[in-house]
């Protein structure tokens, strides 16, 4: 019981790290980025490559993965996405679906279609018993890393100058621009960090979620649920939504495997009908 809760929390935190970048891009630019999972996949493959081929230590590979995905995010954002912000939602959807398809096929071509496994250090394998609760070492690591990152994100967002600029831009980009905030720059930085975190999540998630070329499509709906249920006006909303989703998914698959993923889709649809702006979102004036 508690083990399931623990696994669910680890899973949820991972989903949060994977999805929080999407929440910000959606809230800030009103931009529907269905290709978010592609950055996570890129991070996952880079981590596998670094660890398995080049023999980089697992923990050292994580920051490298973050940097790589963030750089990739900046390049793609500045070269491609900037042209699409002003287009209609339909065109944004088409564009990002196109990017997903291209990334899926490209990774299939470069790395093959089989599932990738990352070589974990012995220290992170197996589980230990803590007062009758089986705790997986790797999951504990995930919770530690993701928890720390969440705290840092929350601190940056609420207590720094950049955070307040970002929040101002999310609330009303035009007014923020008028007050001298360089919204485009804020957005580029945010996009880079979001992509980096997605890549980091992809690297951490290789063991838990699996990694193959279909990754961006398989988990697209999970990212969207995190954003849809959590709303885009804060990061606590998506965080709670991700935790709920993680726990519900793990518990659902464990207790009622015959229903499987059906549970979370139903939850999402119901939440969206009842509260179109998300469970924790607030209605903005736009």
């Amino acid at each position, binding site marked *: 019981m508690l083990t399931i809760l623990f696994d669910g929390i680890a899973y949820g935190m991972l989903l949060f790290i994977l999805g929080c970048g999407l929440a910000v891009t959606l809230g800030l630019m009103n931009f529907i980025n269905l290709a978010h999972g592609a950055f996570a996949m890129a991070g996952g493959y880079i981590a596998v490559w670094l660890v398995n081929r080049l023999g980089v230590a697992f923990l050292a590979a994580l920051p490298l993965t973050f940097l790589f995905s963030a750089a990739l995010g900046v390049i793609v954002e500045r070269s491609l996405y900037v042209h699409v912000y002003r287009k209609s939602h339909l065109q944004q959807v088409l564009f990002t679906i196109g990017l997903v398809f291209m990334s899926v096929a490209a990774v299939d071509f470069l790395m093959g279609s089989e599932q990738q496994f990352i070589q974990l250090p012995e220290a992170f394998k197996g589980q230990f018993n803590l007062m009758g609760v089986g705790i997986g070492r790797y999951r504990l690591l995930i919770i530690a890393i993701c928890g720390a990152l969440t705290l840092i994100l929350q601190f940056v967002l609420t207590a720094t100058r950049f955070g307040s600029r970002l929040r101002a831009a999310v609330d009303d980009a035009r007014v923020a621009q008028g007050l001298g905030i360089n919204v485009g720059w804020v957005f580029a930085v945010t996009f880079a960090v979001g992509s980096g975190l997605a890549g980091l999540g992809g690297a951490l998630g290789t063991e838990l979620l699996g990694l193959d070329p279909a990754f961006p499509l398989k988990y697209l709906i999970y990212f969207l649920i995190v954003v849809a249920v959590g709303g885009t006006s804060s990061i606590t909303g998506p965080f709670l939504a991700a935790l709920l989703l993680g726990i519900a998914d793990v518990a659902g698959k464990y207790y009622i495997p015959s229903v499987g993923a059906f549970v979370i889709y139903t939850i999402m649809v119901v939440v*969206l009908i009842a509260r179109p702006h998300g469970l924790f979102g607030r209605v903005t004036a736009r």
Partner: protein
Amino acid sequence: MMAAADIARPLANRARWGVLETVFWAAAIGTLFLAPSRHLILTQVAVLGLFALSLDLILGYAGILSLGHAAFFGLGAYTAGLLAAHAVTTEPLLGLVAAGAIAAVFGLLTSVLILRGSDLTRLMVTLGVALMLRELANKLDWLTGGADGLQGIVMPPLLGVFPFDIAGHVAYAYSLAVLFIMFLLARRLVNSPFGLSLRAIKANRLRCAAIGIAVDRRLIAIYTIAAGYAGIAGALLTQTTQFASLDVLGFERSADVLLVLILGGPGYLYGGLIGALVLTLVQDGLINLTARYWQFWIGLALVIIVLGGDPVRRLGASLGRAARRLSATRGSAQMVESRREAGR
């Protein structure tokens, strides 16, 4: 205020058959006799075209963005497949009607979901509904065959007279006939005052509500109709291939049909048909070169369409405009004529 007659005349002008339209359908019928070796692939074109036509009704006319239109397609496909596999009906046409009806009912039930919220909400809800159906079909493997697909479908002869042959001649004639009839109905629909009000809703929903158009009811109506169309397209696929698998409900299928429609251009009914023809033929040509990485080229096409606009759509749109201009000039010439008559 505009009198009903003032609306009726432009609508009637718009509904008149243009030269290009006649040519298009004459060519389609011509393929029945002139290209017998291509009937298998042309059947695919007809099915995909009907599916895209269905999406055009909601996206091109009512402006509803959907990422889960495959839900209705798949529902129709499985309905037709199950009816045939369990020999409930021995007539393909009945299966077709039943599939359309069931998909339409499901459309009616889920249409409340697309009335509220933003584009993004609709996108996710439609995607969620399609994924739910796919998961359901996967889990109900005693009924649907699960991941193995629905097997053992044997199609009885059409109308009890024409057995489906291996070269697909009957299947193509059947698909083309269904497509043409459904197209005529859609054409009638979008050239009616109802169709006009849909365009108005797409342009400005708030204002429509203000001038007394029952926005929600019309959106529900068109969503239900489009769902029925998609169901019939799915049923056609099952009946002509005698197989249904989980990918009829998949995300890729929803995305593909979106691409087809965008390629041909939404909002003038022919877009889906032209897009289906272009995409299927290109795919058929390229599949031997890059079967496994076909998705990459679809993706690239989408990216290029958004970034640069696409020649096919522009061509289609200008053809559509030319056709309308042709019929419009004819219409106004007649109006001048009738006024002269009245003046005498």
